[in-house]
């Protein structure tokens, strides 16, 4: 019998991707709650941004009566267009801040729930880095799902509400490229926020002695 101890192999990424994908698929409804926090926050940010984008697109083509209607609806026009007033920027920052707190809370709960599972897989030979990678990947999936669904929802609601207020002028000058880029960066923001939320609990969980993790209540 060999008495020497070897070093554990680091699992390749494709294995980690497979395991984390199956894991998130199996607890789809649980992770939907975390994802929903992201969806709502990103939807709000995307709604605000795409509303301003659309107004900026309509404004040059709008006749006097439509311009009056927009101005009387409470939108502030500055030299740089709509949406660059300090009030607008504060609103966006605050919504992101609230979202970060919500995400950290949701991820903390989701990881704490799985302490025992983490203890078990560490007994079976999982490295700390594997545990961290699993949680980071799951956070990326949640971020993508929440980000895309949230930003599409935000853009959709913004379009419909402006359509309701200002009529078909919105459709004629709908800024397709800007909308696409809003969906793009808002999804990126969601992935980033999701990662920010998960990184601390994932590190704590990975560093635990297996015995401590196994003692956790289920």
């Amino acid at each position, binding site marked *: *019998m*060999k*008495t*020497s*101890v*070897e*070093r*554990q*192999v680091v*699992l390749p990424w494709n*294995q980690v991707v497979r*395991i984390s994908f*199956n*894991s998130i698929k*199996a*607890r789809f409804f649980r992770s939907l709650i975390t994802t929903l926090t992201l969806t709502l926050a990103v939807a709000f940010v995307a709604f605000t941004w795409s509303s301003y984008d659309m107004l900026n697109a309509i404004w040059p083509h709008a006749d006097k009566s439509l311009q009056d209607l927009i101005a009387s609806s409470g939108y502030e026009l500055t030299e740089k267009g709509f949406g660059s007033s300090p009030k607008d920027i504060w609103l966006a920052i605050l919504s992101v801040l609230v979202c970060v707190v919500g995400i950290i809370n949701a991820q903390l709960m989701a990881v704490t729930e799985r302490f*025992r*599972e983490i*203890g*078990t*897989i*560490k*007994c*079976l*030979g*999982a*490295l*700390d880095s*594997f545990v961290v990678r699993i949680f980071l990947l799951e956070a990326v999936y949640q971020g993508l799902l929440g980000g895309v669904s949230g930003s599409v929802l935000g853009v959709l609601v913004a379009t419909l509400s402006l359509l309701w207020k200002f009529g078909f002028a919105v459709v004629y000058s709908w800024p397709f490229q800007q909308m696409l880029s809003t969906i793009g960066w808002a999804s990126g923001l969601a992935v980033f926020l999701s990662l920010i939320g998960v990184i601390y609990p994932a590190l704590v969980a990975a560093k635990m*002695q*297996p*015995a*401590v993790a*196994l003692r956790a209540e*289920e």
Partner: protein
Amino acid sequence: MYRDETHNVVRLSEVTKVFRMGTNKVEALKGVDLTIKTGEYLSIMGPSGSGKSTLFNMIGALDKPTSGRVFIDEVDVAQLDAYELAWLRCRKIGYIFQTFNLIQVMTAIENVTLPMVFAGMNRDEYTEKGMDLLKIVGLAERYHHKPSELSGGQQQRVAIARSLANDPAIVLADEPTGNLDLTTGEEIIFLLKQLSKERGVTIISATHDVKMLNVSDRVVWIRDGRIDRIEDRDKLKISIGEVA
């Protein structure tokens, strides 16, 4: 695997463990010396709170002792880095728990093959071996069931199959019958005994189940963080009267 009577698979030397709970210090282990030979079926007996589970965690390299040394296959566990420790837990030791601790979102076969995935085996190899192991514990036809679709006894069988995944030298069982009824518990004990005979695996189980005594080669009685006495099987018959 062969039996080598002189080989010490586990050796503990003056192991202590202190837990801090706020300002309180709880001494769970107060200096334990223990040597376990290859192929032995050893039971650690003692009332709850005696330090049994703490001792189990020390032997399994799941927690660090406050002082003293733990050797597994004559390797000092404290000297190992994270990678070596993970390798040791993956290849040398199989774990069985009172609460089964199967991964709830994985099927029986996925649970059994997980240690082999960590060991770096390829898919064909681990699937085949996983099915063989499930056959040994009599659950081959339920390979696709999730733990929630299996009874307690069946879950523990899956856990036993999982513990054997990488042909470990030691199987550590923490109260393996604690959550099972009498007959199912007996079946599990019988299965463990059979595996220890056939495969020459060292089985160490922490328990307060008296049924375990009949199959054990040695029994370590632990009380209040210390080893009270160690009994060989031939002398055991006499003392069972005391227990019951």
